[in-house]
């Protein structure tokens, strides 16, 4: 019953026009930034319940974070199951793969309803943060 999504509109960052991520199949193969992501920073974002929010739904191999959700698949081994490009698309806009997904689009503001003023027009993560998270998730191989 959900409407088909309009053509994907990717968020742009504070006036600086972002190159639109190019989707190839089920992946965004090309990194969104020139500088590569940093896994340690990505881990911190994943662990942070107010930034990445990941642990609200996903269990992850971050033992110092005791209370992790069980609503979504474990992130353990996700780097072995998915390529960085596949991870990137799932972060940027998981709806591209499953319109009913629970997972928020971390770098798309398309089709959102009733967003609070403070978050209007802003993606959940910045491109650098997306790349950091992709870099971290890619290290989760067991």
């Amino acid at each position, binding site marked *: 019953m*959900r409407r088909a999504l309009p053509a994907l509109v990717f968020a742009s960052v504070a006036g600086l026009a972002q190159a639109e991520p190019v989707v190839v199949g089920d992946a965004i193969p090309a990194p969104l930034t020139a500088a590569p992501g940093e896994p340690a920073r990505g881990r911190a974002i994943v662990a942070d*319940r107010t930034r990445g*929010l990941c*642990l*609200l*739904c996903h269990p992850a191999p971050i033992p110092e974070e*005791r*209370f*992790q*959700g*069980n*609503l979504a698949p474990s992130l353990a081994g996700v780097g072995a199951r998915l390529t960085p490009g596949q991870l990137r698309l799932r972060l940027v806009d998981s709806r591209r793969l499953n319109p009913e997904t*629970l997972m*928020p*689009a971390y770098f798309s*503001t398309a*089709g*959102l*309803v*009733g*967003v*609070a*003023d*403070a*978050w209007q027009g*802003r993606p*959940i993560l910045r491109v650098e943060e997306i790349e950091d998270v992709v870099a971290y998730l890619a290290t989760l191989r067991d």
Partner: protein
Amino acid sequence: MSPWRRQGWLPLLALLLGAAGPRSGFETMTPELQAMQRDDAGNPGMLSVLEGEALFAREGCAACHAAAALRGVAARYPAHDAARGGPIDLAGRIAECREQRAGRPPLPRESQPMLALQSFVAHQSRGLPITPDPRLAEARAEGERLFRERRGQLNLSCAQCHETLAGGRLAGANIPEGHPNGYPLYRLEWQALGSLQRRLRGCFTGVRAEPLAPGSPAALALEAYLFGRAAGLPIETPAVRP
């Protein structure tokens, strides 16, 4: 049909309904929290009920409403209001009654006296099943649309968490079905008694959505739908929740 037979049906019906019917958030709390709610001498929400009782007497409400006659009222709200041609909730009715009949200045919805009056009135219906007003079908339909609409930066609907994923764990917290049968209730997170509107605001803020304005048609529609889907659950006011 013999009375025996008729009675024989009821437990079976209750069992069937119980299995498939709505589940109060009470049932998924720890035994300690359940005990806190059950014990009138220890339930912190009872302080507001007491305050409401005193206000009810002091403001002259008792001149028209015998406390005994309030039994069952909260179980029927939100109700259809002919003048508005739509739903009115208990807080709205109390506000209207105070202002129009008793000529008192308005009380903000979230003010302590309003919460106290509301908890006193709702407490009179404790244990009675929610019986939705049949005239609110239209509002409930709109409420259900809102319940199923994804919203906010996190793009989540009420239904995704409180229907599909109820019983799961969001971080460390159990996701309840989200029924309104205990309000106003004492929430440990608030360390105070608060309204259903306050709780909804919390959910909306949580998904980074603009909250519905309390008392607005949209908020009343959602409230009407929530009470409709909780039909049969007993009023627990003042409930205790984590």
